[in-house]
């Protein structure tokens, strides 16, 4: 076996080449679909379409995807994030409209609701030892039902009386850039910092690589797993705030988004087995989904075919990832 000699600077050679390759593959995919649609449609590659349609449509799935990335890196999964949007949005409506709480307080309480969803998930998984799929599937059903309970016979709550709240998603403090896109970027940056610069990230990767070894190394694995689900729940609440500010708090908001978020994470090269994955990859994954949806719509492809194409893209992305890993491990 020939071993690579470390560059004198001692930078992370093996590690980064691998993750870079992974991101590069996803990024190349994004470029390919973007170029394809740019040629296929005159309208697609315009600033207005790319920012106001593609980016804005990606925001919710993208924010969910960054939270989900952390969970998946630990080897878990979170199915509750989709309807979590409905629950946290409805909670925001109750706090800010029904109860007329101050904006900041209402926002904090809403984030707290999201964190609470994550805490219950984390508790059930980490302390009670339930499989993440089951624990968060159950929580998904709770998040589907609770907004209806909180609503008046399923009616949405609108925030027209609170332009400041709506401004969080639709304002344009920087001309030409919708605020929701900025929120998405901030979320992605926070998640990136958490994963790459903090203990939470280190332990997330460690737990996903080998939970038992991490435990035996003296890390409080239970506590860190709960924290990671709580953080993911916090991101869900942010998505809930954006969604409700845009279209009002609807009890059916976010339906199916959890699967799109997982799809984005997987397209971005994160392994469902845990231990590997990047935020940048997941953001690119979300963008690929957004570009595909928008591009196909602009080209007049019917919605049903869009689903089928997305399915094929996921299969192709995961399969190429597998091929790459196989060639890596045999050299």
């Amino acid at each position, binding site marked *: 076996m020939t071993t690579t000699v470390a560059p004198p600077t001692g930078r992370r050679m093996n590690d980064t080449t691998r993750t870079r390759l992974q991101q590069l593959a996803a990024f190349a995919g994004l470029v390919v679909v973007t170029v394809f649609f740019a040629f296929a449609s005159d309208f697609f590659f315009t600033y207005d379409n790319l920012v106001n349609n593609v980016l804005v449509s990606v925001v919710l799935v993208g924010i969910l995807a960054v939270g989900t990335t952390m969970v998946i890196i630990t080897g878990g999964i979170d199915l509750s994030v989709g309807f979590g949007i409905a629950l946290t949005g409805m909670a925001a409506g109750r706090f800010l409209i029904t109860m007329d709480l101050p904006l900041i307080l209402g926002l904090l309480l809403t984030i707290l609701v999201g964190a609470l969803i994550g805490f219950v998930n984390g508790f059930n998984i980490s302390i009670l030892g339930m499989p993440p799929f089951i624990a968060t599937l159950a929580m998904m059903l709770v998040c589907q039902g609770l907004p209806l309970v909180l609503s008046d016979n399923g009616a949405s709550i609108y925030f027209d009386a609170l332009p400041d709240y709506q401004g969080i998603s639709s304002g344009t403090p920087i001309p030409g850039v919708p605020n929701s896109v900025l929120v998405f970027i901030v979320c992605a940056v926070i998640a990136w910092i958490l994963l790459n610069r*903090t*203990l939470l990230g280190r332990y997330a990767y460690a737990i996903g690589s080998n939970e038992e*070894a991490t435990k035996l190394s003296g890390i409080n694995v239970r506590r860190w797993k709960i924290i990671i689900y709580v953080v993911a729940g916090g991101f869900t609440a942010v998505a809930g705030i954006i969604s409700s500010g845009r279209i009002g708090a609807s009890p059916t908001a976010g339906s199916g988004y959890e699967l799109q978020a997982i799809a984005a994470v997987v397209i971005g090269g994160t392994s469902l087995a845990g231990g590997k994955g990047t935020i940048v990859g997941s953001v690119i994954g979300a963008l690929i989904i957004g570009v595909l949806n928008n591009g196909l719509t602009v080209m007049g492809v019917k919605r049903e075919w869009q689903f089928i194409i997305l399915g094929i893209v996921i299969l192709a992305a995961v399969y190429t990832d597998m091929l790459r890993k196989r060639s890596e491990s045999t050299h």
Partner: protein
Amino acid sequence: MTSLSKQLPEPATEALLLEVRDVSKSFPGVKALQDMQLTLRRGEVLALVGENGAGKSTLMKLLSGIYQPDAGEFYIDGEPLRVSAPKDAQDRGIAIIHQEFNLMPDLTVAENIFIGREQPRGGFLLNGRALNQRAADLLNRLELPLNPRAKVGRLTVAKQQMVEIAKALSYDAKVLIMDEPTAALNDAEVATLHALIRRFVTPETGVIYISHKMDELKAISQRITVIRDGKYIDTLDTATSTMGDVISRMVGREVTTDARPENVRDDRPVILAVENLSTQSLLKNVSFELREGEILGFAGLMGAGRTEVARAIVGADKRVSGHISLRGKRIDPTNPAVAAQHRIGYLSEDRKQYGLLLDQTVTANIALSSMSERFSKFGFVNDKVARDRSREYVESLKVKTPSVNQIAKNLSGGNQQKVVIAKWLMKDCDVLIFDEPTRGIDVGAKEEIYRLLNDLAAQGKSIIMISSELPEVLRMSHRVVVMSEGRITGELSAAEADPAGVMHLATLRPDSNASDAVELGLDPVLVTEDLDAYENEELDR
């Protein structure tokens, strides 16, 4: 070896049921078997004994077709036997019962016995009644007290073993090979098993019985074949041999005494004291003391409970009773995180499963335990410092890696072990528990690990070294604790410890075992006991 006359077995004759002739098998770096000999006569129970790693399981795997021999041949009834898959052995009448059962707990006894041979009607419709009838016929013939319809997962270990035996014998086996069949059985269950074996042995069949337990060999076997370090040593007639004869051949080699460490003086402070430690499953009243700068060897056979002691101390397994004191102060490590705070580190016998983050860098592995207290502020990690400090350990332990950014799985076994050691040294542990520190490590790297352990002890670290390699234990330990069946059966100073003495203690069945059986209300009159259980299972359904 010179003192032993090497008696080669008789050349193959008609009477031999199974013969292993000059079989060799190598793995990278290891000669697992070298010119192995073994003969099984018709109508006998042959015991096969040897230390851990003597080559017993390799031989089993060759006979099962899991491995292929590099050289040599097997003969059954005087005809050559080639085994390339488990089915080949089955077809020629060899049934192997492994220590780990291959049963499906959610299927019934009948379904397990006949899996793959269900004989469905029309090719796909299962007939449960017919299957149960076939199973009942078989079980009656074998006189096994089992209910064909009972779910295997709900049976005791002893009964699960009966299912394995029934399954093996349903292929009309002539040769039955059992690997440590009594490891998980109590005395009464052992007696039942032996009765079953005696029923099975006819003038046309034979049994190879692999075990460490001397009293059992006396009870069940006619001859005992001893193997050591992958080589055939001797075959003894059970009736005319003593336990000492067998043990001296198992251990064999002269142990060089000059390398032995001096005993640690009594005036050194006791660092770790364990009193009456018990666990739910195995350990009973384990007590010992570990002094500063001492290497305390833990010897014993597979399954004696040595790893369990380590896991219970650091809280990886639950303790049901007992106390642990560190420098005279009572501590209660409920999980490995608490143990790590007390500077107690456990290095698992299974590095890949329990020690390393294989897909992560050397730095990530070395710094893992120390990350929160040494390389982070307010939760933010300082990678550069972690890398620099890791590099220092890589240099001082001479870990051969192109850089600290190398992925751990690309390192050799010895270097991976050093990475795990570095992790605990960085954590500044005073008590280090090494579980099989040189397993899967080549000879040169072993010496380095030994030197490292000696250096650490000289620096005042207290070390528990669990090892299945007797020479390693004797060479390294200031004192040796010997375990058998979840208890400590003896403690020897470096001067007292010799291979035969340790092996004797390791093969003891702790006295209290027999009284346990009485406490549990188990009566040697087995048939009634089993029939009761049989009826209870019926009621459960």
